[in-house]
């Protein structure tokens, strides 16, 4: 399967990890009891690299063992185990326990309402209701008297809701997909067993239904691909450690955050070091997102769902839009599903370009800001609403710059014509990398320093000082 439209481009197809899922003997062996046990054992050993506690690895692998040997109960196991584990881990904190339970029950209730009354106001626009309700909850929590019981309960609910809101959102979006009424898979996709950030990996139950292994052979292939991806994640993680030791330890090149901080303090590092730190940060962000995403998707595949990778060859992107798609696929999908499409289908239908730009800004500026602002709810709790909003000036600038670039990239897509390796591939690839290197000036310490500090640092890369 090709990912993200990566077409045959004539590049050398070298593979560090062989395509074991295409070897008939390996696939046949993987369908036997011994083969399944070997895959599970290898996966357990591999995931140990990322999970320090042995007991967690054993629990994790055992659950995958259940889904492997009892595929008929896969959805039920995956629906029950994650929420049970989360609740068991929060028994020491009644507030956390109650908040999570309340939010999960609320999610089920909203899903039930959206399915039951599709023609109601809520049924037609459940995401708008969900996000407005979440915003109202945050405002209510901000208005509560500090350290009162109401304050603690409300912020507890905000925290739990921040963790689950996009998962519930996908369940609500799934109301129109077919086949319907499959609460077990909806629950399985609520902070799934294989892990995720606040962004659902990989999307919601509708997507899981499409990619679920339907027979032992498909399961074997999917699990072998999961094992390969986990191996890739480990290799990248090792490379990541060596990278940091070499560049930031041995060569002592400051991190991007350090270089910015030193500039703000009036003791800037040398011009070439500022550039080096920016370039390194770009590659480090690609490495970090790759390791995290590969690990989650490897687990997802182990459970029997052949999900697309989260990060797939971002450095080969020839446009900014393509990089955005390849870099953090499931987050981009979230922005598209929750913000881009609803805007695109409703507004400026008569003007193709304006329609595209408006929907892109709705997703990348509003959606992106909403996601991060609510994800960092503790900042709102600590700083207060207005201070927290003010802290987002750098992020908003970053989002607006990204949205502008993405809009231009999408509008130019139609005119793009391949013109050989240098003009058609090499130079655009370098240009995309350079753009994100420079845009990343506005990523680290984005809430620590004001926008002007980031702009000064940005200008200093070009020897402009003000």
């Amino acid at each position: 399967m090709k990912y993200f439209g990566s077409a045959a481009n004539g590049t050398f197809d070298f593979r560090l990890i062989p395509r074991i899922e295409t070897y008939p003997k390996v696939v046949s062996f993987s369908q036997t009891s011994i083969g399944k046990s070997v895959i599970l054992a290898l996966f357990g050993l591999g995931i140990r690299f990322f999970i320090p506690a042995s007991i967690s690895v054993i629990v994790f692998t055992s659950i995958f063992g259940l889904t492997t040997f009892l595929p008929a109960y896969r959805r039920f196991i995956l629906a029950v185990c994650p929420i049970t584990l989360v609740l068991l881990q929060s028994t020491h904190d009644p507030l956390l326990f109650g908040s999570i339970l309340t939010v999960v029950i609320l999610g089920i209730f909203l899903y039930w309402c959206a399915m039951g009354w599709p023609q109601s106001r809520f049924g037609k626009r459940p995401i708008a209701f969900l996000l407005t309700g979440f915003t109202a909850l945050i405002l209510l929590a901000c208005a509560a008297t500090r350290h009162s019981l109401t304050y603690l309960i409300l912020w507890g609910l905000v925290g739990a809701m921040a963790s689950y809101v996009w998962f519930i959102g996908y369940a609500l979006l799934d109301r129109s997909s077919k086949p319907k009424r499959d609460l077990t898979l909806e629950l399985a996709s609520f902070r799934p067993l294989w892990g995720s950030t606040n962004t659902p990996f990989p999307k919601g139950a509708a997507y899981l239904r499409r990619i679920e292994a339907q027979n032992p052979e498909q399961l074997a292939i999917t699990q072998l691909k999961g094992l390969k991806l986990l191996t890739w994640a480990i290799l990248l993680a090792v490379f990541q450690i060596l990278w940091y030791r070499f560049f930031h330890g041995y060569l002592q090149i400051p991190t991007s955050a350090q270089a910015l901080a030193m500039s703000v303090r009036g003791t800037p590092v040398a011009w070439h070091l500022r550039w080096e730190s920016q370039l390194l940060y770009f590659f480090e962000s690609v490495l970090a997102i790759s390791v995290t995403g590969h690990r989650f998707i490897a687990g997802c595949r182990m459970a029997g769902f052949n999900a697309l990778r989260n990060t797939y060859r971002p450095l080969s992107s020839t446009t900014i839009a393509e990089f955005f798609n390849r870099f953090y696929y499931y987050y981009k999908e979230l922005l598209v599903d929750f913000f881009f499409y609803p805007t695109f289908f409703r507004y400026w239908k008569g003007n193709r370009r304006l329609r595209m730009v408006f929907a892109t800004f709705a997703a990348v500026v509003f959606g992106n800001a909403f996601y991060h602002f609510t994800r960092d709810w503790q900042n709102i709790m600590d700083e207060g609403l207005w201070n927290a909003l003010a802290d987002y000036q750098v992020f908003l600038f970053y989002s607006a710059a990204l949205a502008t670039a993405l809009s231009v990239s999408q509008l130019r897509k139609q005119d793009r014509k391949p013109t050989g390796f240098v003009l058609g591939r090499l130079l655009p690839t370098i240009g995309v990398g350079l753009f994100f290197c420079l845009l990343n000036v506005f990523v680290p310490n984005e809430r620590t320093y004001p926008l002007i500090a980031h702009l000064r640092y940005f200008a200093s890369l070009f020897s402009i000082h003000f």
Partner: protein
Amino acid sequence: MQGKTEIREFLQGLLTSYGDSAPFHDSEPLLSGGRLQSIDAVEIVMFLEQKFGVDFATIGFDRDRIDSVDAITDLVESFKSADKRSE
């Protein structure tokens, strides 16, 4: 169906813009299968709006329904019949 040929040609054009000239079946999922990007869904939507008058704001959007030639053909057919019924 005449529309099916147009739909197929349009999707082929999108794939070609990525340098993807490999053949595809009418039932092959192109968006969820990764051969097309989600932004291409927008191109498909605009194509269906302009060519067949499909209004997604009215019928609701489900990416599965524009995932393959067959799915799009079904969508267009069901939209046309619903449109006739409402006349």
